[in-house]
């Protein structure tokens, strides 16, 4: 968002009648000029743009640097072509006009459209360039139209004499399919000194090219940074929400398993009631199966947390608010897992377990096997749940 005062030097000489740029060189130039004016005023509302014509009866200033876009566009209207371009006079008068800019803090820039042959000598152009450099005026040259011997060299010489810290650029636009303005959009003429002042231009290009843009969500962060940020945050939140939902689904599944644990226990109770001798065996089988199942479920929460961690780091890099939102969702997850652990604590509670087991007719709490079982229960409580889940579908089948 460089604060800039720009003077655009238009070539309205006879050479501009040529139609090798559609619809005519002059029209292509006019489109490019209006795009540049729009881009400059959009990148910084205090920017001013002025226009002068170099050919015709003589160098004529159509508009002194102003930020009123309407005035600039209206003075472009009804221009006549004729005569020869006077590049040196045009640039010098542009420099004088910039000297009288209202806001002295604005950077001075001249954009020259050189479409016709240049009759000045290289030396003369270099002198002008040096004077511009002394007054810290940046110069952008658009070389298009007539391709005469020595023209690129002269313009390059002019550019090197003006250039100071790479603030000045030259663009060679050959005739062809692409419109002059489209080619210019991607050049430093529009994008300035590395600043993203091309938001307007990029949008125009996107509209022209049919919505092809390099930016996420099809919104240029330069045009509408708030919109782009909002879109990004909502995408992340959606992702977080989905994962939280998945987590909750997994938890519910595990809770269901815990809920079913009572059933398998009652089943095992029945089983033990029926099979007095093999009271511990079903439990052991249950344990083994449950161990496997719970191992699986443990992996899922584990993977969830790792994904959550990755997301968290991403979030902290991107957005503070978003990080906060994720933290909250993570807390929810952790709450659930703590709930899980609560349940497992309950299961692991030996007294409780022993009381349950003692209620089983075939089980003797003092049985070493049972004691082992009790000891391993806390760690196996979740495997138990999963085993039950596996059992249930098996039973159903």
């Amino acid at each position, binding site marked *: 968002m460089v604060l800039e005062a720009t003077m655009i030097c238009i070539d309205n000489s006879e050479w501009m009648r040529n139609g090798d740029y559609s619809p005519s060189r002059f029209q292509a130039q006019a489109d490019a000029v209006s795009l540049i004016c729009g881009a400059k005023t959009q990148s910084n509302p205090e920017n001013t743009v002025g226009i002068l014509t170099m050919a015709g009866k003589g160098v004529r*200033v159509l508009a*002194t640097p102003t930020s009123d876009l309407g005035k600039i566009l209206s003075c472009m209207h009804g221009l006549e072509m004729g005569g020869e371009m006077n590049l040196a006079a045009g640039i*010098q*008068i542009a420099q*004088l006009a910039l000297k009288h800019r209202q806001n002295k803090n604005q950077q001075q820039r001249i954009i020259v459209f050189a479409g016709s042959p240049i009759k000045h000598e290289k030396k003369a152009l270099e002198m002008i360039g040096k004077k511009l450099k002394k007054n810290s005026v940046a110069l952008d040259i658009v070389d298009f139209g007539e391709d005469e011997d020595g023209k690129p060299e002269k313009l390059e010489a002019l550019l090197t004499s003006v250039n100071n810290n790479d603030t000045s650029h030259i663009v060679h636009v050959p005739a062809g399919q692409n419109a002059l303005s489209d080619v210019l959009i991607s050049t430093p003429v529009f994008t300035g000194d590395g600043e993203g002042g091309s938001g307007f231009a990029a949008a125009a290009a996107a509209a022209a090219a049919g919505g092809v843009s390099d930016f996420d969500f099809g919104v240029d962060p330069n045009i509408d940074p708030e919109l782009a940020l909002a879109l990004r945050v909502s995408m992340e939140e959606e992702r977080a929400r989905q994962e939280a939902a998945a987590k909750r689904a997994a938890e519910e599944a595990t809770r269901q398993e815990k809920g079913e644990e009572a059933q398998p226990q009652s089943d095992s109770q029945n089983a033990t009631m029926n099979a007095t001798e093999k009271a511990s065996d079903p439990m052991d089988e249950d344990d083994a199966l449950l161990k496997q199942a719970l191992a699986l479920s443990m992996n899922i929460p584990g993977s969830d947390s790792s994904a959550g961690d990755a997301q968290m780091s991403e979030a902290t890099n991107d957005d503070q608010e978003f990080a906060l939102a994720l933290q909250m969702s993570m807390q929810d997850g952790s709450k659930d897992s703590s709930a899980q652990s609560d349940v497992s604590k309950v299961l692991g509670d030996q007294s409780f377990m022993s009381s349950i087991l003692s209620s089983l007719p075939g089980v003797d709490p003092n049985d070493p096997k049972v004691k082992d079982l009790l000891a391993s229960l806390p760690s196996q409580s979740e495997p138990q749940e999963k085993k039950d889940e596996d059992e249930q579908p098996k039973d159903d089948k």
Partner: protein
Amino acid sequence: MDVIKTQQISSRPIEKVIVHPLVLLSIVDNYNRVAKDTRKRVIGVLLGTSFKGTVDVTNSYAVPFEEDEKDPSIWFLDHNYHESMFSMFKRINAKEHVVGWYSTGPKLRENDLDIHRLFHNYVPNPVLVIIDVQPKELGIPTKAYYDVEEVKENATQKSQKDITLVVKITPFSPANRSGTLA
């Protein structure tokens, strides 16, 4: 501008230019502030009325003007400034029109004709008044000119002739108005 007035202006060549003291004072003051010890000159617009060959200059203001010392064909006059300024002046006194322009000279320069041509956009018959801000002799420090088109063989060519218009410096008084401005 009235239709009648324009006819009168274009039909009668200018014979007399009356410069009011306020104009002289503001021009000299501006010059002393801006370009006193330099070789630059100050240029501005003259406002007033014109009737039957007599131009009555009642007000003036300077405009941003730059010219290249080495190359007289390079000059820049901020006409946007002039247009804005004139529209504001018109609000306080609708009878004052642009009648011409002034330069602190001290003499005529090459690009004066080009600048004069620019003022043809604002008034059909502009008058140039050269004010000598550092007069060496006693007398009226102003000289007024207008341009004349000379047809030279093949093409028309504008040239400026030294028309020593009778320039009077009169203090403003109702008697001098003689019903022209009323």
